[in-house]
C-alpha cells in the first residue's frame, strides 16, 4: 500500500491542509478552484448582459447595474478567471514538465495564491457594499475618479492585491525555470508549455508594475485627494490610459501565450508527431512578447496622439501577425503527416485554429489606424477580443482541463460529455460573436446599456444572445462531467500516450513529484524512452533523501491582513473606523512578516528508506 494514497480524511483536515499548503500542486488546484468560481460568476454576468440586450430598449437591468455588470464581467474574466486558471495549470504542470520537485519559493507561492484569492473576493464583495465598480474594466479617468460610491475603490484595491500575487508568481516561475530544470533538461528541450510559462512570467514582470503604479495613482486621487487625473489642478487623464495599456496589452498576450503552449502539447500528442519547427515556435513566442510591449497605444488610436504616433503603433501592431502566423502554420504542419486522434482536448485544439485565426485577423484590421476610427469602441472590438480570448485562451484552458485532468485528479473526464460540451460551446461561441462584427459596423458602440428600436440591430443581438445561452449550457455540461468523474474508477497512468515528463510520474502524483531525479535525453523525453527504450525515464542519480519545505498558515494570514487593511482604505474617507481597520490590517500583515523572518524554517527530509518503498 503506497504511503501517498490519500486516506479518507475529514473535510476540516482537507481545508486546513489547503490553507497551509506550499506544495505547487495544491496551490495549483487552489488557483483552478477559485479561478473556476470566478469564471462561473463572470459567465453569469455575461449571460445577464446578453439577456439585457436580447431586445431593443430592454429594461431587464438598470443602466447603472449594466455598467457594473460589464465592468465586473471584464475584470473578473481577465484578472480573476483566465489568468488564475492558467496559473493553476502552470503551477501544477510546469515543475513536473521540467523535472523539478517544487517551485523555487514555495512559501511565496502560497502568498501569491492567497493574495489572488483575497483580492478577488474583496473586489467581488463590492456587490454587498453598495455597488460594484462601474467604469469599465479599463476604468478610464476621469469617469472612474468621479464615479460615486465605493465601487471603483474595490476595483483598485482588489486588483492591487491580486496584482501583487501575480507578480510574485511571475518571479517564482522565472526563478524555477532558470534554476531548477532537471538534469539534461536544457533550454532547447523544454516543452513549449514551460517555455510559454517562462515568457508569460517575463511579460508579467514588466507589465504589471506599471499597473500597480496606475492603481496607486487612482487610489491616491480617489482617497487622498491628489490631482493626477484632476484637470482643474493640472492633472492629465491620458496618463491613466498609457499606464493601463502598458499593462493591458501585454496582459492579452499573458492570456494567450500559455494557451499556445497548451496547444503545442496537445497537438503533437494526438498527432503522434513531434512539434514541427520547435525552434521557430520558441522564437515566435519571444517575438510576440517583445513586440507586445511596443503596441499599447493601438488601444488609443482615437485619443488624438497624432498621426506619427498612430502610424508607429500601427506598424508595431501588425508586425505581431508575423510570429503568430508562424505558429499557426507550424501547428498545421505538425498535424500534417501525423495520425490524428480526435479526443476532447484535440477537438478544442482543432476548434482553436480557425477561431483564433479569425480573431487575429480582425486584430490586424483593428491595427489599421484609419479603419480603427470606425471600429474603435464598437461591437467589432467586442467580437475581436472574444474571438481571440475564447477561441484562444478559453479553448486552451478547456483543452488543458480535459487533457491534464487525469494527471491532477486521477480520474478521466467522460469523452462523450466532453465532445457534447465542445460542440455546444463552439457553436454557441460563433453564434454569439460572429454577428457582433457586423453589429459594430452597423453602428452599435460597445458598453451600451440599451440599443434603440428601429436601428436594424435587433436580429443580430437576438442571435448573439441565443449563442450565449448555448455556451451557458455547454458550461453546465462541463460541470456535470466534473461531478460525474468523481465517482469513476481511477485513471490509468499516462492515458493519452504522452510525450513529456509530467506523464512519467505515478498516478496520483506523489507530493515529492519524482522519486528519482529524472534524466532528460532529448526533446519529448518520455517519447524518446518509449521509442528507444522501455518507456521508463532513466534516473539521473542514485536515490537520496529528499528535502521538502514545511507548510505554513502565514501566507493565508498575511493576505488576510492586507485584505482587512484594504477595507480600511476603502472606507477611510467615511470616518475613523476605516483608519482603524488600516492599522489593524497592516499591523497584522507586518506581524506575519516578522514572524516569518524570526522563525526559522529549515524544512524536512524524506529519508531514502521511505522512498524505496514507494511506486516508481
Amino acid at each position, binding site marked *: 500500500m503506497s504511503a501517498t494514497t490519500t486516506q479518507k480524511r475529514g473535510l476540516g483536515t482537507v481545508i486546513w491542509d489547503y490553507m497551509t499548503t506550499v506544495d505547487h500542486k495544491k496551490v495549483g488546484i487552489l488557483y483552478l478552484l477559485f479561478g473556476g468560481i470566478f469564471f462561473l460568476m463572470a459567465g453569469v454576468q455575461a449571460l445577464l448582459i446578453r439577456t439585457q440586450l436580447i431586445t431593443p430598449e430592454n429594461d431587464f437591468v438598470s443602466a447603472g447595474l449594466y455598467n457594473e455588470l460589464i465592468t465586473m464581467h471584464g475584470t473578473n474574466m481577465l484578472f480573476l478567471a483566465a489568468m488564475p486558471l492558467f496559473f493553476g495549470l502552470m503551477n501544477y504542470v510546469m515543475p513536473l514538465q521540467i523535472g523539478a520537485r517544487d517551485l523555487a519559493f514555495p512559501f511565496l507561492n502560497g502568498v501569491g495564491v492567497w493574495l489572488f484569492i483575497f483580492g478577488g473576493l474583496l473586489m467581488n464583495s463590492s456587490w454587498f457594499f453598495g455597488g460594484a465598480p462601474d467604469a469599465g474594466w479599463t476604468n478610464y479617468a476621469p469617469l472612474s475618479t468621479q464615479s460615486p460610491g465605493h465601487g471603483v475603490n474595490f476595483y483598485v484595491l482588489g486588483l492591487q492585491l491580486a496584482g501583487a500575487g501575480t507578480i510574485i508568481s511571475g518571479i517564482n516561475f522565472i526563478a524555477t525555470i532558470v534554476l531548477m530544470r532537471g538534469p539534461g533538461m536544457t533550454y532547447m528541450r523544454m516543452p513549449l508549455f514551460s517555455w510559454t510559462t517562462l515568457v508569460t512570467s517575463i511579460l508579467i514582470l514588466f507589465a504589471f508594475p506599471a499597473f500597480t*503604479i496606475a492603481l496607486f495613482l487612482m487610489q491616491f486621487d480617489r482617497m487622498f485627494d*491628489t490631482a493626477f487625473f484632476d484637470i482643474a489642478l493640472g492633472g492629465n487623464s491620458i496618463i491613466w490610459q498609457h*499606464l493601463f495599456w502598458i499593462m493591458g496589452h501585454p496582459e492579452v498576450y499573458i492570456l494567450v501565450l500559455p494557451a499556445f503552449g497548451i496547444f503545442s502539447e496537445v497537438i503533437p500528442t494526438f498527432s503522434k508527431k513531434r512539434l514541427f519547427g520547435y525552434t521557430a515556435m520558441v522564437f515566435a513566442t519571444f517575438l510576440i512578447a517583445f513586440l507586445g510591449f511596443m503596441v499599447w497605444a493601438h488601444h488609443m488610436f482615437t485619443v488624438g496622439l497624432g498621426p506619427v504616433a498612430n502610424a508607429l503603433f500601427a506598424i508595431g501592431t501588425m508586425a505581431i501577425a508575423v510570429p503568430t502566423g508562424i505558429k499557426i502554420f507550424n501547428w498545421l504542419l505538425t498535424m500534417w503527416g501525423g495520425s490524428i486522434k480526435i479526443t476532447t482536448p484535440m477537438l478544442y485544439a482543432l476548434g482553436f485554429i480557425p477561431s483564433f485565426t479569425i480573431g487575429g485577423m480582425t486584430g490586424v484590421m483593428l491595427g489599421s489606424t484609419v479603419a480603427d476610427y470606425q471600429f474603435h469602441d464598437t461591437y467589432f472590438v467586442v467580437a475581436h477580443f472574444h474571438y481571440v480570448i475564447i477561441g484562444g485562451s478559453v479553448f486552451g484552458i478547456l483543452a488543458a482541463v480535459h487533457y491534464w485532468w487525469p494527471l491532477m485528479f486521477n480520474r478521466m473526464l467522460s469523452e462523450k460529455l466532453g465532445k457534447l460540451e465542445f460542440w455546444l460551446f463552439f457553436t454557441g461561441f460563433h453564434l454569439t460573436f460572429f454577428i457582433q462584427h457586423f453589429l459594430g459596423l452597423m453602428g452599435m458602440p460597445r458598453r451600451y446599456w440599451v440599443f434603440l428600436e428601429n436601428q436594424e440591430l435587433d436580429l443580430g443581438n437576438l442571435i448573439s444572445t441565443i449563442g450565449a445561452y448555448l455556451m451557458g449550457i455547454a458550461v453546465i455540461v462541463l460541470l456535470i462531467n466534473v461531478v460525474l468523474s468523481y465517482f469513476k474508477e481511477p485513471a490509468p497512468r499516462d492515458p493519452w500516450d504522452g510525450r513529456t515528463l509530467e506523464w512519467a510520474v505515478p498516478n496520483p502524483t506523489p507530493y515529492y513529484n519524482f522519486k528519482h531525479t529524472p534524466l532528460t535525453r532529448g526533446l519529448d523525453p518520455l517519447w524518446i524512452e518509449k521509442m528507444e527504450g522501455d518507456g521508463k525515464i532513466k534516473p539521473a542519480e542514485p536515490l537520496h533523501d529528499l528535502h521538502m519545505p514545511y507548510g505554513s498558515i502565514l501566507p493565508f494570514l498575511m493576505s488576510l491582513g492586507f485584505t482587512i487593511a484594504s477595507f480600511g482604505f476603502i472606507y477611510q474617507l467615511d470616518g475613523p473606523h476605516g483608519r482603524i481597520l488600516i492599522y489593524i490590517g497592516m499591523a497584522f500583515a507586518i506581524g506575519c512578516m516578522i514572524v516569518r523572518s524570526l522563525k526559522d524554517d529549515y524544512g*524536512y527530509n*524524506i529519508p531514502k528508506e521511505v522512498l524505496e518503498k514507494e511506486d516508481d
Partner: protein
Amino acid sequence: MSHQETIGRSAHKINPNKAPIDPSRATPEGKYKHLGIWIFLGSETVLFASLFGTYIALKNSTAGGPTTQDLYGLELVFLMTLLLLTSSLTSVYAIYHMKNNNFKKMQLWMGITGLLGLAFLACEIYEFAHYITDYGFTFRSSAFGSAFYTLVGFHGGHVIFGLSWLIVLMMRNAKRGLDTYNAPKYNTFALYWHFIDVVWVFIFTVVYLMGMVG
C-alpha cells in the same frame, strides 16, 4: 505525513576549515534567492520607470502653485545623495566581510549602512516638512505636487522598508552568527539597498537637477 526527518540549524553551519565559499550562495535556496531578488528588482525598475514617466508628464502642471525652481535647493539634496551613496558603499564592505565569514565586521558595516539610511530619511522628512510649511506645497496642491511627493515618497517608502528589514535581520541574527541560512538574506538585502541607491541617483538627476534648470 509521517515520513519526515526534521532538519536542524546544524545543516547550515559554515565549516571554517574548508576553503572560503560564498555563504550566501552555498545552498540551493541561496541561489534561488539571489536570482529571485534580481528578477524582483527588474520589476521594481518598471515600477519606478512608470513613476518617472508620470512625474515628467506632470512636472510643469503646477496649477499656479510653486514650481520646481521655486522649491528645490541643491545643498540638502546633495547631502542626501552623499549619504545614500556612502551607505551603498558600506553595504559592499559588509558583504565583503560576509564572504570572509567575519560576522562581527559584517554586522558593524551593516549597522553603519542603516545609520546612513536613517540620516537620509531624516533629511527627506525635513525636506518635505520644509516644502509644506514654508511653501504650502502639499500633494494636493497641484498635479505636480502629487507627482513629486508620490515619486520621492515611494522612494522614501522603499528606504523605510529597507531599514526595517535590516533592523529585523540584524537583531535576529546578532546572537547566532553567520550561517548559510541567513547569509542569503543579508545578500538580498544588500542588492535591494543598491537598487534604492541607483533609483535615488535618477531622482537626483531627473527631479532635482533637471528641475533646477527648468
